């Protein structure tokens, strides 16, 4: 199964590896410490936005 982006130049693979995902997150994030933020996301359990406490 795969997610088909509307763009013809969509992703070739439907699976993000942690390394690729981390780099993509750094590109998309405006955080100055996106690496640490990515690690925190990895090390904490998922919760939908209304359950997440805002970062100070």
């Amino acid at each position, binding site marked *: 199964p795969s997610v088909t982006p509307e763009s013809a130049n969509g992703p070739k*693979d439907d*699976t*993000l*590896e942690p*390394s*690729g995902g981390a780099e993509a997150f750094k590109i*998309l994030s405006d955080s100055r410490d996106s690496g640490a933020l990515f690690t925190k996301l*990895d*090390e904490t359990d998922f919760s939908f936005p209304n359950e997440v406490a805002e970062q100070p």
Partner: protein
Amino acid sequence: LQMEEQPTSTSSSSMVGDAVKTMRYVMEKSGMDLLTVTQAFLKNSGDAEATLHFLQTGRRRDGYPVWSREDDLELQNYDESVRNKLIAKFGTENVEKRIAFRKS
């Protein structure tokens, strides 16, 4: 998925570019922000379709739960009873996918 054949030390620019496109696509389709989408990807072993379905419905299409930090720590335990517990919780295929994902 042949994760063993993927490079593990560095990310190619095309792989990162594809990851950016995939994450943007899931953000657009789910209406969720970057942090939520990224974390959902991590907890769905990087599977884009599973992640999008999970974000849209609150559950995985295969009925199994998403991975927690505790599950990931238990995955590092090679004790047979612990592994069998994870297989009972996630299914054999999802456990194998998770092992490959964590190694990538």
